[in-house]
């Protein structure tokens, strides 16, 4: 134990010494403490949807009102970086919830002129897409309806990374492990990712490889290109042979009035030789006035088909009705709630579209986002008005409208409309 502590102290001391010794041509405040602080408050009001999955807001109670207050502190001193966030969530349904999140804590140091090593928890972003990032193999989960992360929700992952830079190229090797904390810290699944980047003939090209224990190896690429003054194009593609995706067992059954008990999921395509891929195609056009229009198309081969979706819905509604019977069928409770948990926050099906219009003015900005399922034609419309009071204070008024038929992906969600009023103070 003493030897371990001594070794950790020596290693940490080495990092500290290297950090103090580091001196390169840089910006004026190199070597000084850099900081960013932001405090956010957002209040949300929701009008609930009368979806059959949540009649009278009983089975999956949703708050009509909640508010979030958070404070985010980012510190950087030489090679050390810390980003910590404190949240307070107030909801009409629950007691106030207080928590803190360690978003980032890492040591990043150059080894010579071309190599950079990073150890710790860091947010990595590899994709070129705005709402969807198939090649974001080491990225934190993203909300496609809030691509710019206005509430600072992104959280880093524990990694050891090596970056090498030469000319217009770079090579990044990442080892990641979501450490488990069960009394003492233990290693979870090993994960390796590699990215080779090159800027060739005015095109950003990245080749990406990813391996995780017990999962399929993935290969992919992403690109970005600007044509003229106005048009920017981007794309992402990632593929694997077979799939480790978990599918609800109800999808494979002809009859939906079934009870699965503990055996809920199956890995349908583990041994398949079929190529499972995700594709993103995107473009954005900027007019002379500053109006920016963006459109993206996203396809996920592993997503549910319309038939899968219908089967899932019939199964879930069956158990929902069983719960509402008098007396309720107790066996249906876990069946119903587990079925709801199979839905992916990125969208459960295959074809999605994203559209964004953004007009920045000096003091204010107008944004309109439309995120939709292209098969069942359901989606969310999100207009946002943002205002900059001064360089420290800005605010926004944002609303969301969930549209679609009752049996559609977005039409069956628990919220019909929501309104958010937020303010952000930055130093």
């Amino acid at each position, binding site marked *: 134990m003493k030897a371990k502590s001594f070794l950790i102290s020596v290693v940490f001391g080495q990092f500290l010494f290297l950090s103090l010794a580091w001196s390169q041509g840089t910006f004026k405040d190199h070597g000084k403490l850099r900081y960013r602080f932001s405090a956010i408050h957002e209040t949300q009001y929701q009008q609930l949807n009368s979806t059959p999955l949540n009649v009278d807001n009983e089975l999956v109670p949703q708050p009509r009102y909640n508010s979030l207050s958070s404070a985010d502190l980012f510190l950087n001193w030489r090679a050390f970086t810390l980003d910590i966030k404190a949240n307070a969530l107030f909801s009409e349904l629950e007691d106030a919830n207080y928590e803190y999140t360690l978003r980032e804590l890492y040591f990043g140091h150059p080894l010579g002129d071309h190599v950079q090593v990073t150890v710790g928890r860091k947010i990595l972003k590899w994709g070129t897409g705005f709402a969807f990032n198939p090649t974001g193999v080491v990225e934190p989960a993203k909300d496609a309806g809030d*691509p*710019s992360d206005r509430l600072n929700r992104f959280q880093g992952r524990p990694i050891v990374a090596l970056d090498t*830079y030469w000319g217009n190229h770079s090579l*990044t090797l990442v080892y990641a492990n979501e450490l488990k904390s069960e009394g003492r810290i233990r290693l979870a699944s090993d994960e390796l990712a590699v990215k080779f980047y090159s800027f060739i003939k005015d095109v950003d090209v990245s080749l990406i490889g990813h391996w995780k224990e017990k999962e399929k190896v993935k290969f992919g690429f992403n690109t970005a290109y*600007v044509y003229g003054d106005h048009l*920017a194009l981007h794309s992402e593609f990632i593929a694997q042979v077979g799939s480790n995706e978990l599918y609800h067992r109800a999808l494979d059954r002809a009859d939906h009035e079934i009870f699965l008990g503990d055996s809920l999921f199956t890995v349908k395509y583990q041994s398949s030789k079929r190529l499972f891929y995700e594709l993103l195609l995107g473009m954005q056009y900027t*007019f002379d006035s*500053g109006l920016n229009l963006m459109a993206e198309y996203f396809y996920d081969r592993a997503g549910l088909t319309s038939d899968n979706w219908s089967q899932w819905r019939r199964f879930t509604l069956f158990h929902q009705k069983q719960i509402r019977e008098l007396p309720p069928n107790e066996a249906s409770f876990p069946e119903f709630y587990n079925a709801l948990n199979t839905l992916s926050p990125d969208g459960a099906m295959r074809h999605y579209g994203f559209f964004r219009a953004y007009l920045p003015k000096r003091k204010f900005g107008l944004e309109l986002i439309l995120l939709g399922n292209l098969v069942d034609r359901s989606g969310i419309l999100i207009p946002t008005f943002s205002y900059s009071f001064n360089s420290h204070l800005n605010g926004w008024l944002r609303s969301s409208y969930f549209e679609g038929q009752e049996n559609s992906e977005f039409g069956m969600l628990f919220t019909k409309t929501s309104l958010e009023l937020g303010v952000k103070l930055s130093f």
Partner: protein
Amino acid sequence: MKKIFLLSTLFLVSTMLFAEDKGSQILRISDQYRNAWPSFVVRLRITSFKNDKQKNARNLEVMVKGDKKSLVRFLDPDQKGQYLLMLEDNMWIFAPNTRRPIRISPLQRLLGEASNGDVADITFSENYNATSVSEETVGGRECFRLELTASNDKTTYQRVEYWVTKIESLPVKAELYLASGKHYKSVTYDEFKMIHNRLTLTQMTLHDRLRNNSHTIMEFLEYEPQTLQEKYFNKNYLTQLK
């Protein structure tokens, strides 16, 4: 008749070549007042005005290496942690909330009047060819007037009219045109000072010709010559910057 035509063509081509040669020389000298060292860091303040009332002020720090590479760091509280990288006419913006470099087109404006191209594009000699040189008096000063055309179609302003003083080739003013022919901006080079023993541009004003009564003043507050490593101008290195 044929002889006259040939002679006229020869004369015209010679004049153009002479103009281009003389123009290139003038551009190189004139660029030195705006790009005085092989690599340096400069601190800027960009103030936007509408109807002569101040609307917005931004503070930046810019790393410049050679004629085609610059890295802009945004200093104001609501933009802290943001960077803009420009390699020739290719641009990437990095914002701390998205945590990744995003490729943007030249027209995506982030600084009010000053488009990204204006902020980062310091020199003309590398991006433009002088197709004619004439003489004109501007504000009581004898000047050369140069007609410049962009040497590649990715340059923000495809045509520029540029005036420099005859003797020192000090920049005086410029008129900037888009590829469509639209007159987009007017620039005046207002102030020069001796910095590290070099006469260097310290203030310029940009007038928006599409939006009336709007202009931006760019003040170059502090220059520091430095050796800058190549990795600062690699798009993927942006994720290492704070």
